[in-house]
């Protein structure tokens, strides 16, 4: 049994069109996706904008309810759980977003951002100030930030450092599954490598299962074990990362590969 199973996951949105919204159009954002993800695996999810990557990630995160199908985590069907239980479970899956400039609260210091994340798993830590500080410092060191900066605000950091804070925040609740939605797309090339190294190292150290969403296949090739290619709400190809690069079978994968700018020397 796989660690995370997506069984025929489907999400349709109804769009009203025409005068007075009389006509209904159905947008099949995610259309029968089935995927198995093993524990400790990094799965790359690629596709053009509008292919349904983000809707799929929201379904996995239980932020929206599926039209049909289900998400099964360690043999448990998440949709069957009561709402309060899902809220408890949400600690187990965390997200890292594309833009580290808008995904951190500008009015909270690094300390308050991270201690809040840790407290979702260990509420008692709020009573003990020195334990809390130690836990935050440890978390900062883990993602390569100097604990001296514990009282600083997000605007005092560079883009790469902010993404490290966002990663630390995601790791705070000790998740089992991390969903990274274009985590390096907004960063400079030289910073991208640092963040990719960090994510890879963390997944090895902590045994994290990760879904890495991107439109840039060259980045996904480096980090992912397997790559799923998504087009119009469906998974059209699923292969080992290297194999996908060597012999893509779907037109969508070929097109994404052709689009990567190449260094011509």
């Amino acid at each position, binding site marked *: 049994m796989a660690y995370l199973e997506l069984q025929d996951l489907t999400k349709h949105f109804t769009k009203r069109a025409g005068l007075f919204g009389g006509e209904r159009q159905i947008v099949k954002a995610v259309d029968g996706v089935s995927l198995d993800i093993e524990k400790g695996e990094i799965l790359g999810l690629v596709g053009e904008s509008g292919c349904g990557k983000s809707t799929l990630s929201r379904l996995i995160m239980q932020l929206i309810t599926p039209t049909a199908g289900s998400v099964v985590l360690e043999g448990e069907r998440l949709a069957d759980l009561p709402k309060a239980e899902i809220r408890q479970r949400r600690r187990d899956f965390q997200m890292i977003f594309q833009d580290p400039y808008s995904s951190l609260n500008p009015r909270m210091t690094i300390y308050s951002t991270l201690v809040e994340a840790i407290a979702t798993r260990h509420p008692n830590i709020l009573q003990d100030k020195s334990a809390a500080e130690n836990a935050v410092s440890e978390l900062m060191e883990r993602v390569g930030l100097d604990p001296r900066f514990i009282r600083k605000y997000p605007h005092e950091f560079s883009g790469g450092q902010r993404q490290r804070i966002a990663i630390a925040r995601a790791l705070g609740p000790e998740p089992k599954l991390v969903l990274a939605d274009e985590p390096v797309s907004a960063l400079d090339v030289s910073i991208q490598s640092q963040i990719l190294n960090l994510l890879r190292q963390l997944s090895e150290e902590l045994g994290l299962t990760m879904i890495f969403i991107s439109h840039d296949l060259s980045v996904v090739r480096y980090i992912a074990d397997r790559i799923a290619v998504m087009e119009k709400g469906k998974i059209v190809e699923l292969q080992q990362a290297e194999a996908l690069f060597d012999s893509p079978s779907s037109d969508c994968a070929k097109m994404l590969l052709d*689009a990567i700018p190449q260094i011509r020397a």
Partner: protein
Amino acid sequence: MPLLEVEDLKTYFHTREGVVRAVDGVSFDVDAGETVGIVGESGSGKSVTCYSLLKLIPQPPGKIEGGRAMFDGKDLLALSESRMRAIRGKRIGLIFQDPMTSLNPYLKISTQLIEPLLLHESLSKSEALDRAIKELDAVGIPEPEKRIHSYPHEFSGGMRQRVMIAMALITRPEILIADEPTTALDVTIQRQVLDLIKTRQDELGTAVIFITHDLAVVSEVCDRVNVMYAGRFVERAPVADLFSAPRHPYTRALQRSIPAMQEKGEQLYTIPGLPPNLAQPIDGCSFAPRCEFSGDNESCHSGGQPQLVEASPEHWVQHCRGCVEV
């Protein structure tokens, strides 16, 4: 004679933390019809260089401290605001990184697209509209006569960037400044936009100054490349030379750090440290603190800032006495 000749451009920002030397003595030229790249990390001064040429630097705190930018016999840096207005958006066009925020969401595309024509070419509204529809057609917007009456939010990101390109090129500028035009876009859309810029450039004979941090994009679109670090150019070469025989340690480090160039599974190479604080004076090579060759080498860290020298024909490199051989 080059179309644009920039000489020793210096733009400083006077802030509370001190004088930030954002652009510190930059020289380059652009020939008619060619594509010149400026590549570097965030904060290296790429955009400030180009905005200085068009008087788009907020003054204060910014101030152009020196240099010349000769365009058609006139020094752009010395022009009055009213003279500059006849050049900016007419003879030198601009496209920005983010097509989501650089179009006015309250105005129809038609209004925004014909504005430069009404301002610069005093056409009548209906003539201008005809031209605008043709221009939309040329950048590949389907049903342009209908789409021109839409609002920006009715277009996708890639389509908006096409509209931006149409707007920048509608006055047939001699130079187009493209500031990270594809950074916010998907790879497939990026490919389309790069191809479009190239096609329109060939059709119209426009010179393009292409600003980006993405070396792969540079290698595909540029004829000549300037590598910028800490407010100065560290290397300038024809694109093939730069990638086959990079000379400056920074250029080499930048190339090594591209994820796509590395083997799967091995630790990705990263440049250690951070770019220098430009408010502090730098003695010696500005890259020395992060450079793997410099170490304790005294000649990397002293003796004033190294100058650009021509190492081989048309290949210029900042001559750091410690680790660059010329």
